[in-house]
C-alpha cells in the first residue's frame, strides 16, 4: 500500500475541522449557524448528530456533503480538504457524498415517474443505458423494498414511508460511500419510522455505507448510531459512544435533554425526576460571548459567560465542552 493510500485508509471517511458557517443577514446581523464544530466519521460507521431547532445540525450536514462552503475551518473527505480538490476529484466527491432529505412530500419531483427519479443519478453520470439502466433501476427499487411495477408510478401515489424509500434509492443510484441523513424520519409515522431505520441499517451492512444521522430525536439517534454528538446553538456540547452518553451524560444540556425525553412506560415516567430548563431555545443570531448554554444552564458560573469552553477529552471517546466538568 502506498503511503498516501495508507493515510487515506487510516483517516476517517468524512471530517469537519473547526467548521464555521456564518450567514450575513439583512441589516448587518450575523447568523452563526455553525461555530467551530469538529467531528469525524469513520468508514462503515454511523455518527449521530442531535440537537434542537436552530442548533446548526442540518447546516453541518450540508457542509459535509459540499452543499455549503465553510466560512472558516475545513471539511475533509478521505483525508483531503474538499476545498482543494481538482475538478475530477470534486466530481468524484460529489457522487460519493450523498444526502437523504427530510420531507418525503417535497423531496420528489411530482411530475417525474419513480423510475426517472431513481434513475436521475444514472442519467446524469451516464452509468448505464437502455435495458441495463432499467434493470439497475429495478435493482435499486428492490434494495429498498419496492416493486418493479412502482417504477411507472408517480410520487403522489405513494405513502410517506414509501416516498422516503424512493429518495433513498435515488441517492444509492450513484453508488455513494457516505450519506448524510438529514432528519429522514421526522415527517413519518411512528411505525414507518422503524421501517426506514431498519432499512438504513440493513443497507449499511450490505453496501458498507457510512452515515451521519441527523435528528432531534435522541432515542432514535442513540439506537442507530455508534457515536452521538450533541449540538447546541452552533457548537458541540458533548460527544460520546451512544451507551456512554446515556449512562454518563456530563454536559448539563445533555442531562436536561435526556431528562426531557418521555419514556413509554407510565410507571417509570411518572416516577422520574425531571430537569426542567427555563426559558426558550435562543436564536443563533448575534449570540452573546461565552458558553452558548450559559443563559439556561442550571450550573452556570461567572467564567461561563466570559469564555466559551473547549471540547475536552475525558476518556473512552467521550468529549465535553463545559467549564463545570473536568
Amino acid at each position: 500500500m502506498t503511503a498516501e493510500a495508507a493515510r487515506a485508509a487510516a483517516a476517517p471517511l468524512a471530517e469537519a475541522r473547526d467548521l464555521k458557517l456564518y450567514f450575513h443577514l439583512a441589516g448587518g446581523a450575523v447568523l452563526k449557524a455553525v461555530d467551530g464544530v469538529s467531528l469525524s466519521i469513520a468508514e462503515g460507521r454511523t455518527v449521530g448528530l442531535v440537537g434542537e431547532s436552530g442548533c446548526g445540525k442540518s447546516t453541518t450536514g450540508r457542509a459535509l456533503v459540499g452543499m455549503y462552503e465553510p466560512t472558516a475551518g475545513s471539511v475533509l473527505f478521505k483525508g483531503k480538504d474538499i476545498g482543494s480538490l481538482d475538478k475530477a476529484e470534486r466530481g468524484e466527491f460529489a457522487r460519493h457524498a450523498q444526502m437523504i432529505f427530510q420531507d418525503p412530500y417535497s423531496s420528489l419531483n411530482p411530475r417525474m415517474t419513480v423510475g426517472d427519479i431513481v434513475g436521475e443519478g444514472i442519467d446524469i453520470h451516464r452509468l448505464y443505458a437502455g435495458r441495463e439502466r432499467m434493470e439497475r433501476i429495478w435493482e435499486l427499487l428492490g434494495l429498498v423494498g419496492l416493486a418493479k411495477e412502482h417504477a411507472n408510478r408517480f410520487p403522489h401515489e405513494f405513502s410517506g414511508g414509501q416516498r422516503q424509500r424512493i429518495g433513498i434509492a435515488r441517492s444509492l443510484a450513484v453508488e455513494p460511500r457516505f450519506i448524510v441523513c438529514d432528519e429522514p424520519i421526522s415527517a413519518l409515522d411512528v411505525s414507518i419510522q422503524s421501517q426506514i431505520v431498519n432499512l438504513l441499517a440493513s443497507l449499511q451492512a450490505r453496501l458498507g455505507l457510512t452515515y451521519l444521522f441527523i435528528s432531534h430525536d435522541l432515542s432514535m439517534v442513540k439506537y442507530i448510531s455508534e457515536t452521538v454528538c450533541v449540538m447546541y446553538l452552533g457548537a458541540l456540547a458533548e460527544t460520546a459512544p451512544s451507551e456512554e452518553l446515556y449512562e454518563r451524560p456530563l454536559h448539563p444540556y445533555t442531562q436536561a435533554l435526556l431528562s426531557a425525553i418521555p419514556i413509554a412506560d407510565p410507571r417509570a415516567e411518572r416516577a422520574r425526576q425531571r430537569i426542567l430548563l427555563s426559558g426558550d431555545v435562543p436564536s443563533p443570531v448575534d449570540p452573546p460571548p461565552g458558553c452558548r448554554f450559559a443563559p439556561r444552564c442550571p450550573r452556570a458560573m461567572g467564567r461561563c459567560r466570559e469564555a466559551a469552553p473547549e471540547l475536552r477529552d475525558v476518556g473512552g471517546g467521550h468529549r465535553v465542552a463545559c467549564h463545570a466538568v473536568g
Partner: protein
Amino acid sequence: MKHGENMAGALGAQDSPLDLDDLGEELFEEVPRGDSGEADRIVRPCLTYWQDAWLRLRKNKIAMIGLGLLAFYIIMSLVGPLMVSYDFRAIDEAQMDSGPGPLHWFGTDTLGRDMWARVWVGARVSLSIGFLAASLNALIGVCVGGVSGYFGGRLDMAIMRLIDVLSGIPSLIVAILVMVVMGAGIAPLVIAMIIVGWVGSARLVRGQMLQLKNQEYVLAARKLGASDARIIFRHLIPNTIGLILTNVTMAVPYAIFNEAFLSFIGLGVQPPAASWGLLARYGAQSFRVAPWQLFIPAFFISTTMLSLYLLGDGLRDALDPKLRS
C-alpha cells in the same frame, strides 16, 4: 364481564354478513402471512398529471360551461360564415340597417353587410389575436421570469427594475406610439400588445421559480450533479406549466379586450378585415338607429371573456399539484 365475551357497542359496530352467533371453526385458522408486497400494492389506477387534471376539471360544472361556450364559439368562427350565402364584405344597399330576421339572422350594418357572417369572421380575428398575444406574452414571460428567478442576484434585480418601469407605462400610450411608428394594422397591434404585456407572466413565473428552486427535489438533483439546464428543463418548467397554462387562459380575455378597445378607437384592425372591436366601432356610430349592431359584438366579447375567466379559474384548481390526493 366474562373473558372473551362479545362487547358490541363498546368498540364499534359490526356490519358483516357472517352469522356472528354461529361462527365456524375454520374461520379461526391462522392465515399464513402473505408477502408485504400485498400490503404495498397500489389499488388505484395510475393517472398522469394531465389525466388527473382533466378529471378534476370535468367535475367543475362552471368551468365546463366556460369551456363549452368557448369551444362553441371557436367552431362557429370556422363554420358560421359558411352557413349563410353572404360574403362578409358584400354590400347590399337594399338591406341597410335591417334588424335581425329570417334573411339576416343578426341583421345588417349600415352598408347592408350581413352581421352573422361579420360576427363569425370577426371572431376568427379577435380570438386568434387574443390567443396569439397571450401566448407570446407567456413565452417571453417564461423566458425572462425563469432566468431572472432561477439565477437571482444582480441579473434578477436588473430585470425586476425593468419590469417595474414597463408596468408603469400605460399600455394605451405604447399602442399609440407603435401605431405611429409602424402604422395601423394587425401586426403592429400584436406587437403593441406584447411589448408591455409579458410583464405579468414574467412576474408570475419568477415567483414560481423562486419558490421551486429551494424545493428539496431541486436540491437533491443538484446534489446528484444535475446541470442548471437539466434542473430548469426537467424539474422547474414541468412544475410551472400548470401555472403558465392557467395564466395564458386568464390572459386571453385581456388580450381580446385590448384588441377590441384598440380597434374601437381605430388603432387596431383596419377595414376591410373585421374584428369584434371594429364591429363595435361601427355599431356605436349607428347606435340610435340600429342598436343591435353594437349589442351583438359586445355580447360576444363579454361572453367570450367570461367563459375564459371561468375556464381559467377551473384550470387553476385542476392543475394545482397540491390538490391532488
